């Protein structure tokens, strides 16, 4: 009969209309600024640099090996290696990035930098409220802007962060076992790695 299908369709929408007042399933809106969807563990948006300890610059795990720069598909990372070295978390003398810029206006959030980083120094942030009216000043992030503490990393990706810390602790233990004599010196210079693994 002509009109039967139309009536069925009307019944369907009516069910959704009335359902929207009673059932959460039929009112799926999450009112963003006030309500927020939980971000899953894996959520990623832009990379940040992890640092251990309190000093956001001295504690950077990055050793300026420039692998991420090379592997970054859209080439949005720019690193300049330092001329001097500083000890890293296991006390080994390493270079550090004199300049570490990420152009988030180019970044495609692919996570390849994280994957290729042998030092777990770069991780993915999940902050997304980054809209800005100023392209040039707001979207090129320097080392200072990129550095975030390990606690922040733990905060947003607890499982991954724990895994990373375990791995780092292991590496550290291995390094300590290898180079027993320098342990004392390195621990004094890098007290933070202890705090983070705990």
């Amino acid at each position, binding site marked *: 009969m002509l009109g039967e299908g139309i009536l069925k369709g009307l019944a369907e929408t009516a069910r959704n209309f009335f359902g929207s007042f009673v059932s959460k399933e039929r009112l799926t809106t999450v009112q963003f600024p006030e309500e927020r969807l939980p971000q*899953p563990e894996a*959520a990623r948006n832009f990379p940040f640099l992890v640092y251990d300890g309190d000093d956001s610059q001295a504690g950077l795990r990055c050793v300026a090996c420039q692998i991420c720069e090379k592997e970054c598909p859209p080439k949005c990372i720019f690193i300049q290696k330092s001329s001097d070295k500083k000890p890293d978390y296991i006390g080994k003398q390493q270079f550090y990035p004199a300049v570490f810029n990420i152009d988030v206006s180019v970044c495609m959030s*692919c996570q390849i930098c994280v994957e290729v980083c042998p030092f777990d120094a770069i991780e993915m942030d999940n902050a997304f409220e980054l809209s800005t009216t100023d392209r040039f000043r707001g979207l090129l992030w320097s080392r200072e802007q990129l550095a975030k503490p390990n606690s922040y990393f733990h905060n947003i990706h607890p*499982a991954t962060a724990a895994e990373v810390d375990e791995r780092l602790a292991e590496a550290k233990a291995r390094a300590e076992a290898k180079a027993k004599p320098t342990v004392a010196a390195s621990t004094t210079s890098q007290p933070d790695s202890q705090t983070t693994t705990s």
Partner: protein
Amino acid sequence: MTTAPVKEATHDERAAGCGQDELLEIALGPHHPSTHGVFRMDVVLDGERVVKLKPVFGYLHRNHEKIAESASYLASMPYTDRLDYICSLTNNWAYALAVEKLAGLQVPERAEYIRVITAELTRLVNHTATIGFLTQEMGASGTPLMYAFREREKILDLFESLTGSRMMCNYMRFGGCRVELPAGWLEQTKKVVEEFPRFLDEYEQLLTGNEIFMARAQGVGILKKDLAIDAGVTGPMLRASGVNYDIRKVDKYGIYDRFDFKIPLGEHGDVYDRYMVRMLEMRESLKILHQALRDLPQGPLMDPKAKIRGFRPKPGEAYGRIEAPKGELGFYLISDGSPNPYRYRVRPPSLINLTVLEDMCRGYSIADTIVIFGTVDIVLGEVDR
């Protein structure tokens, strides 16, 4: 939109029936509400009937192939996400498959299962979106599209918790998958898969028997079997024309031979068949998902031979293809032994399915053109690359 030049007709021509050859040329797009982005059709109309239709491409030509030829194999993986940006995981798979063929990598069983699960979820995502947009093009004021996106969001949540991103998953790697399933993901997926048929039922209730929908869809945009094969049409469009050709069955790539599923076939090859084939295909996908989720084995995720960094396949070439939601998605790679592919080519299903657009639309009205175009199911990122 330009008017056809009015010819200086001779008296005899005029007497023969003037006004006959007065055709109207309209450009639909590149900014048009229903050309799925920046597609453009130059349409020649006789009244409201389409006489000629020329698709114009390139408004989203993003030089994917050129960029990939100057980037490492791995670096192209996130770019494949952006080909058919509605179903990034199948793109990943097609590319990974081609590289695996090129380098001779073996994918562990668990990774194969996960690939199947994600690919079939992607098929659901794509088909819901397509059908939603189709109704939008028929002028429904958003409701079916909203319902479709409501379900799509549930699957996107799964993708996000698995891969970290809603759309640009960048999940598969040569020889496996990138990360292990997060805790609780399987249960969540099972729940979504359990609940999905209800949405399909509701959707069919809303549309399938609706007289207006039937009037708009049935007998419109008929694509004949022979033409479909000749023009290399693939995917649901081909099957709606009655050709039994599904690469999941033909190539049995991955582990598709282990699953019990059927291929829905249309008879008329019109818009309604293309819609219904997609609806039925979703139900079949759910069957596969049930089986895959049930049988998912434990084991490693990556081929131990695979390397993330410094990946250099031997010189040679390979063509790998899969049944993406839109049709046959193929990657053709030529390696010269360097870290970058020498030639990197995407065989996009959308572009080639568009070959028959003019044949399907000729003789139908402009409103039908929009609907027919909707059932071709293109994504510009893939068409123009």
